[in-house]
């Protein structure tokens, strides 16, 4: 049965995609998008890329134009967080109460920080963070980045483009090695050094103290790195605080079945806040990628309208991209589970290459740099050989 009113909490990539898909599938009831940020819904990937370097501006990273929402009868309630979920009753911070027939949880995640934030000890998750960082990054500013993951690496590249002096600190011996293997990870760290970024690996940040106008970053091995500005790129924490007391199963994210349903009837979760069950892996996984957010949104919208979601070939295959130093890195599938790799295009010493990842003789992933077609054309093949990793199997 089709609901009469749907409330989506979290007005970003996943939430907006659910709203659009509901309308596309013919849903005619009331549709409300609640978001705590005051800005009209915007896209996050540019925050560490073109928005940070000033190549694009906030009004150009909007997910949709204002008329899009009015034309489709999507009510936006922005600048107000939801503070409580009780069954399908959603309470907002300003006292308003919504009582729809279906609730979609799309509250995303926030950045893990290195301590009480201050203007010179920051994270990068939202538009305001990016604009703050951009204002502070000028020629010669000493930026210290804790964490060499995607956001750290992209921020390093963008900050170098602005002329900042950049130090990148990574706890592991090589950033990305756990995800993409040693060879590809080595190829990805080279551009940092060539661009003049100081890369310190194998030693996590222990503490950051401010003294005499300088941020002093203490590393586990005893080194101290001085900076004007410290950015933590240490991963994210799902925004589930408002769900305390709701009775939902919350671990690393809101636990859902393989189609986004939670244990509460009429309540689904999508995007960075959601940990969907992955039958192939035998566990819940919280994907934090743009594409997973939109794919999950389509599944949930179909589900809410009582339709069985159409199986999309290749859906469910994790996919992410990252733009660094003018090159695009893409990864598809589960390269982290591979027991063999093959370079199938270019070479790891060059700018452009593609690597295939196999396990027990089956193709389970593909990744590359500036080789979009060489990576992406394997998506169907990667799905065609779904990876039946049992919880007790594997190594």
């Amino acid at each position, binding site marked *: 049965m089709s609901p009469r009113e749907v409330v989506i909490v979290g007005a970003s990539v996943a939430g907006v995609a659910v709203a659009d898909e509901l309308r596309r599938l013919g849903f005619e009831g009331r549709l409300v998008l609640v978001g705590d940020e005051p800005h009209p819904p915007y896209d996050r990937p540019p925050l560490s890329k073109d928005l940070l370097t000033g190549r694009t501006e906030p009004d150009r990273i909007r997910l949709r134009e204002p008329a899009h929402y009015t034309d489709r009868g999507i009510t936006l309630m922005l600048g107000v967080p939801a503070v409580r979920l009780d069954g399908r009753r959603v309470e907002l911070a300003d006292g308003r109460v919504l009582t729809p027939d279906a609730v979609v949880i799309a509250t995303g995640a926030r950045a893990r920080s290195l301590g009480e934030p201050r203007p010179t000890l920051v994270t990068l998750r939202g538009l305001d963070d990016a604009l703050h960082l951009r204002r502070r990054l000028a020629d010669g500013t000493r930026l210290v980045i804790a964490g060499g993951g995607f956001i750290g690496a992209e921020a390093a590249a963008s900050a170098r483009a602005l002329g900042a002096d950049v130090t990148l600190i990574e706890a592991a011996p090589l950033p990305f090695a756990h995800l993409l293997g040693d060879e590809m990870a080595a190829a990805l760290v080279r551009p940092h050094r060539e661009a003049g970024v100081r890369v310190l690996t194998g030693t996590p940040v222990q503490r950051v103290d401010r003294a005499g106008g300088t941020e002093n970053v203490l590393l586990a091995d005893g080194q101290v790195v001085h900076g004007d500005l410290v950015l933590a790129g240490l991963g994210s924490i799902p925004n589930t605080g408002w769900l305390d007391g709701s009775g939902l199963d919350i671990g690393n994210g809101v636990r859902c079945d393989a189609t986004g349903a939670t244990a509460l009837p009429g309540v689904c979760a999508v995007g960075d806040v959601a940990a969907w069950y992955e039958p192939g892996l035998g566990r819940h996984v919280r994907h934090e990628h743009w*594409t997973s957010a939109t*794919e999950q949104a389509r599944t949930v919208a179909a589900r809410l309208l009582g339709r069985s979601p159409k199986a*999309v070939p290749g859906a469910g295959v994790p996919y992410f991209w990252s733009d660094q130093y003018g090159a695009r890195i893409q990864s598809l599938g589960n390269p982290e589970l591979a027991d063999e790799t093959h370079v199938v295009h270019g070479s790891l010493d060059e700018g452009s290459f593609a690597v295939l990842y196999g396990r027990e003789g089956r193709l389970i992933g593909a990744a590359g740099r500036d080789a979009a*077609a060489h990576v992406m*054309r394997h998506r169907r093949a990667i799905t065609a050989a779904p990876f039946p990793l049992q919880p007790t199997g594997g190594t």
Partner: protein
Amino acid sequence: MRVTIDEDKCCGYAACLSVAEKVFDLAADNIAAVLVEHPQGELADQAREAAAACPTSAIILLDDTE
């Protein structure tokens, strides 16, 4: 159905090619190219999936009005 690409919007993510590799390819300039302009049946479904998967909404599907 007729498939076209808004080349100003396309950023070369190749998401289209990953769901509809028979309908799209990437040209050397990393802009998507349409291989089958009037897809039918299963390929038409794939083209629709690709339009939904494109991060920049660069794929335009037009109804054939004849």
